[in-house]
């Protein structure tokens, strides 16, 4: 039995965990649900030996775990899959897996990558995963591929306790059921599975017990039979979130803003990433681009942002200048923010804001601070002030900062990629409301996401990207199952 007793952990002035008790027994899937900042990840980090709690202790089968030692936790049989994959970017995926238990080759010093790959492939086949081509380095993999790698690595340790932090947010709908089956298999083998999630339907579908955290405390312990999504949502946030009304988006879009024609891109090895993409986005509409991660979306966004150049084809912005577009990249910690810089400095990353606060090359940091203070207020970013370091913000507030920066750049088009990933209900609703307001005022949005429900909720038109090709769906076709099949590449 895995137990955490009266865990308290403080970060600065913030109480992340306040006397939390938690227990999970062998042969159960225990879901840990809660909002961003509720303390779920902190609890996982304590259990996995990543963090030393201020008070309290973690025990496995009655034996206390050495606090703050991931190695000890792993030796005791606790493996964790982190939300942001902890992989070696510049190494091959096989080498990343070799760090786990896959390398049981002849000598301790002999590293047999072929054997590692073979073991990984056989395990992946059981789980219904596809692995990247041999020798691919992690930096070239999609987010979904990275998470799969990390799950594989954790399983390679043959753990008695597997803790997963939001593992499903990057899986395709078709992969989801296989993944949940995998969790059930692990439970069947008598292991303890702790599933951290904010997708309540998943928790109810797969968990045996559910623990709800709210602001560092246990708000409830329940079982799927006794509860419902609505009840859980209420327990998580303590209030009812009003979903934004998609009908607020203008039914009749205005003039064209973005025009993409025959966009084609090949990678270095000649593999086709984007295949003759053509689409338009008009003023006043939110166009959704749905797809399973790794089907060309990241490259498309990078192309639009000007980070990459297309092999052929054309991107036209009907304002003429590229300044008219603001991009919110999917990986906010890696691409969107500079975590060890201040909030006002992060605002200045956006060129229009940078130009707004510099004159003749000189930076007016007062003006930047004022603007930042204004945005903190307007977008309700929970931060002490403009001088705060971006890395000190929680995920939800980092996302608010990015959205605030995009809006403050006064663009005609916002390209946003997976911006609500990992955000809780309240934060998601807020981001959506901001985008709807932006389009109501005549802006255009291209929302790239792997979350079909999100897109169906707020998008007027829906495009689907699969293997680098785009198809437009019928406006009336809103059947998630059919669309999910299209996302998975059916009908190619």
């Amino acid at each position: 039995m895995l137990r955490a007793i009266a865990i308290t952990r403080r970060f600065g002035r913030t109480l992340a965990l306040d006397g939390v008790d938690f227990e999970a027994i062998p042969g159960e899937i225990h879901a840990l649900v809660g909002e961003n900042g509720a303390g779920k990840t902190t609890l996982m980090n304590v259990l996995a030996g990543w963090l030393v709690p201020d008070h309290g202790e973690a025990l496995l089968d009655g034996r206390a775990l050495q606090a703050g030692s991931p190695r000890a936790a792993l030796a005791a049989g606790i493996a964790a899959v982190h939300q942001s994959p902890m992989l070696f970017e510049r190494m091959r995926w096989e080498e990343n897996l070799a760090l786990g238990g896959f390398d049981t080759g002849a000598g301790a010093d002999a590293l047999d990558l072929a054997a590692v790959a073979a073991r990984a492939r056989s395990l992946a086949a059981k789980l219904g995963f596809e692995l990247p081509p041999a020798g691919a380095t992690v930096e070239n993999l999609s987010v979904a591929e990275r998470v799969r790698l990390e799950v594989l690595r954790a399983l390679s340790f043959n753990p008695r306790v597997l803790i997963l932090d939001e593992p499903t947010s990057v899986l395709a709908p078709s992969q989801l059921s296989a993944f949940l089956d995998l969790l059930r298999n692990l439970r069947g083998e008598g292991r303890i599975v702790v599933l951290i999630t904010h997708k309540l339907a998943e928790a109810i579908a797969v968990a045996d017990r559910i623990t709800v955290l709210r602001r560092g405390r246990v708000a409830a312990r329940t079982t799927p039979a006794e509860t419902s999504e609505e009840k859980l949502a209420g327990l998580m946030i303590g209030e009812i979130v009003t979903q934004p009304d998609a009908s607020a988006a203008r039914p009749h879009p205005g003039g064209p803003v973005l025009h993409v024609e025959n966009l084609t891109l090949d990678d270095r090895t000649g593999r086709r990433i984007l295949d003759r993409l053509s689409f338009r986005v008009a003023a006043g509409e939110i166009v959704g681009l749905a797809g399973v991660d790794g089907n060309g979306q990241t490259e498309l966004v990078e192309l639009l942002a000007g980070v990459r150049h297309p092999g052929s084809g054309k991107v036209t912005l009907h304002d003429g200048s590229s300044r008219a577009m603001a991009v919110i990249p999917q990986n906010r910690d890696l691409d969107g923010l500079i975590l060890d810089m201040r909030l006002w400095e992060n605002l200045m990353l956006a060129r229009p804001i940078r130009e707004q606060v510099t004159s003749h090359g000189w930076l007016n940091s007062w003006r930047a601070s004022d603007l930042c203070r204004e945005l903190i207020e307007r977008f309700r970013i929970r931060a002490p002030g403009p001088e705060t370091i971006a890395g000190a913000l929680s995920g939800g507030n980092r996302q608010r900062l990015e959205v605030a920066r995009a809006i403050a750049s006064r663009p005609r088009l916002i390209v946003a990629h997976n911006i609500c990933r990992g955000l809780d209900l309240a934060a998601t609703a807020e981001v959506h409301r901001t985008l709807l307001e932006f389009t109501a005022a005549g802006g255009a949005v291209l929302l790239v996401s792997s979350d079909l429900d999100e897109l169906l909720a707020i998008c007027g038109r829906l495009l689907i990207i699969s293997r680098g090709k785009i198809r437009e769906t019928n406006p009336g076709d809103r059947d998630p199952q059919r669309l999910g099949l299209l996302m998975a590449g059916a009908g190619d």
Partner: protein
Amino acid sequence: MLSAVAKPFAALALAAALISVVLAALGASPAGVFAALGEGAFGSWYACVDTIVKSTPLVFTGLAISLAFSGALWNIGADGQLTIGAIAAGAVGPHLADFPHSIAIVTILAAGALGGAAWGGLAGWLRARRDVNEVISTIMLNFVAVQALSWVVHGPLMEPSRAYPTSSPIASAAQLEFYFAPSRLNLGMLLAVALAAACYLLLFRTGTGFELRAMGRNRRAATFFGVRIPALTVWAMAVSGALAGLGGAVQVSAISHRLYEKLSPGWGFEAIAVALVARLNPLAIVPAALLFGALDNGSQAMQRTQGISPELVQVIQGLVILIILAFDTPAWSGLREQIFGASSEEAAAVPPVAEMPDA
């Protein structure tokens, strides 16, 4: 928690304590040795001036390092850039006799800056266009610069009598004069201090400086938001090289007045330590360079009066740097990330930062 200002002093005290133990073990009197060190560095007007003179090249090269490192451009080639700057200054210097003093001075310094800029810019261009790691290219260019200096003083720039491997002396119009001669006090340090202020303004008060720092902290994000990385890389390496080259020109114009082999005792490398101790802050480069200059200068007195080898001063310097770095400055974290390849993503995944809750 020690403040940023107190840290270097605490480190210095700790280094002094360690050195005392070593000295005592060698049978010397720590108090006497440190007194001699202080006496040699600051004991008289001449000692003070010499400390300033010895520190001046370290300020120029330290600024060069801090500017490049701020953009995560690991310029290890300040020594080569200084050398090329000196060669350029030594080459034009003898031909400036007919010019007014002010024009001659501006010309010789500009020659040095241009020479250094070319040398640094070359490494920047290689990085931007051919993706050649600037650590490697700048180290290699150091060797080239040293051999180039050796070649010119034996060849094209050798003095007319061909007796000594030095260049002809520069015209007196191109010399930064000594105030209060025979002390060697000259305008070099004043120029260095002014440049330190200018570098600070550039880094922290201009849009370009912001882009450079953004590139240094998170190259990917900078790319995403339209920072032109290749152009900025070439520019920053060229400016860094120009600062080092200017240091070389000041040395030729004010002190050596001619070129000879091994003109630099390794200022460009010592400057890396200076810049790290100053945590890459241009304003802190000046006191950091003075500290190193004082240790250099004081070592001679120490040797004279206490019979301690000047090598011991290098031991002290090494200890000071190690201890300051052990106090963990941000500059060091940046270098560590570069060396061990920790991405900002991994840094972000460290729980205490990433896990700060909303409330």
